[in-house]
């Protein structure tokens, strides 16, 4: 083999390795769901209020895992639903959270997590009615939770009743739109909490074993950022 051919082969092989490395870095490390920015234009540590809107949808028809349950976050500017579980909020501020619960019920493995903690007043408003505890074993009451362990925040997500969920059925297409179609059942959860003064990443998760088909129900969407767990980034 001639020298130019060998040099060319070497260059091609080198470029191939570089391309593979770049793909890995871009795809696995820099890729991922977008971060919905609720912090821009709001001064940190002033007690200012931001309003974060989310939903949990029973079937995620916008990803490669259409049968995985997933949270969505509303873009604060466009109001469009975005398939992500990452959002940023200012430090030392009040977050008024609204979560639309479109998914059906699944009992908590540990009913202790039906207790509301870490929010202002220690209650969650479900369709306007305040609850400090929702028993997921006494009825079709809880679908998921929104929990930020490091600030001891835990809020059970109420569900449409069993009869409503079976007939007419849960929202079939994600992201769901409240009231569209009119008969799709859902619940509206509202609660408020104060963000920490310390900036950083605060992971949040669901405590209902809703990774159906996986070991103990905690695989799949429960272990994947962008579905049932994510990060709240607190910025200054």
């Amino acid at each position, binding site marked *: 083999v001639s020298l130019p051919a060998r040099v060319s082969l070497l260059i091609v092989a080198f470029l191939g390795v570089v391309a593979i490395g770049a793909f890995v870095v871009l795809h696995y490390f820099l890729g991922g769901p977008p971060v919905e920015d609720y912090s821009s234009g709001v001064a940190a540590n002033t007690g200012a209020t931001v309003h974060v809107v989310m939903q949990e949808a029973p079937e995620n028809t916008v990803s490669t895992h259409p*049968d995985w349950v997933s949270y969505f976050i509303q873009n604060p500017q466009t109001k469009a639903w975005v398939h992500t579980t990452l959002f940023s909020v200012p430090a030392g501020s009040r977050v008024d959270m609204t979560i639309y619960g479109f998914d059906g019920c*699944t*009992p908590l*493995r540990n009913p202790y997590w039906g207790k509301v903690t870490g929010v202002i007043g220690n209650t969650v408003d479900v369709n306007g009615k305040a609850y400090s505890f929702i028993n997921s*074993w*006494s009825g*079709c009451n809880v679908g998921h939770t929104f929990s930020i*362990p490091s600030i001891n925040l835990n809020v059970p997500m109420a569900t449409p009743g069993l009869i409503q969920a079976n007939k007419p059925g849960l929202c079939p297409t994600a992201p769901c739109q409240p009231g569209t179609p009119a008969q799709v059942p859902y619940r509206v959860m509202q609660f408020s909490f104060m963000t920490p003064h310390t900036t950083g990443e605060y992971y949040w998760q669901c405590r209902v*074993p809703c990774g159906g088909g996986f070991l103990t129900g905690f695989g*799949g969407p429960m272990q994947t950022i962008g579905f049932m767990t994510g990060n709240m980034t607190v910025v200054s």
Partner: protein
Amino acid sequence: MAAEAPPTSTPQHAAGPSGPNHGLRIFVIWLILSLAADLIIWFVWGPHLPPGAMSSSASTQQFTIRVMAVMAAPVMVLVLVYFIYALVVWRAKPEDEQDGPPLHGNTRIQAIWITLTSVIVLALFVFGTVTLYTSNGAGGGQGASPLQVPSGPVLQVQVIGQQWKFTYRYPQFGGFETTDLVLPTNQWVQFNVTSIDVIHSFWAYQLGVKADANPGVNNVAFTKIDHAGTFVVRCAELCGLWHGAMFDYGQALSPAAFQAWAKVTEAKLADVTAALPPYSLTYDPTFIPQMSKAMVAGGFNGAQGFFYAPQDPFQP
């Protein structure tokens, strides 16, 4: 080619009858350095060795580490002294090109070496076993039937591992459950450690308590806290996406302060406690007798560890 000249003198590294006594030299150096190392380890370094002395189990572990370090130091010093002595004293001179003396076995040294190391290992084995037994497991999980149980009143605390948080139940206070681990000083505590999903490991670092949390298994560990203060609780078993964030802080209070906290918390959590499953050493998530009839009718029977109704999405 000129014939090689025969050696005309005794090699410098072979200790002749009038040479220095290398064995005695090494022994003296070793003795001085070992004594210094052991004194430093025991009196200077020892009190700061992990995991500290906050509890009986932590103190036992620290004492054990001190004993082992004190016994290991002379062995290490001997190896290093011999190594350095050989490098310095027996190093071949630049002009010395002759072979060294042939090596021969030394039965006496071999016998001493084997006997001494065997005695050290067997002594440590006996010491470790006795310490483990007399200290009620030294803070380690002993399984469901511990060999040694402390006498006197014991506070029962159940540790429940779940992705990704430990919760704690206090059966002697109505069985309330909380995310706060609060313990009294000067009283034996029995941790009943279990899990309701995957394998975790309950590690209260400053208390010197570490016990695996396995689903369907009760793993018992004991400790007695000597000083009030805070301690770190970590999961020591890779348990999923947020394993690294599965840590928290516990608190040790005076007995009176603990009693006050427990009674207030029991009353505060009464409504939640009423909805919890009855206190049990393990919990079977595939069988929930409290499940409402409507839920059972809807197909939520908990079979196979899943709570999904048959019509729900299912990922094979």
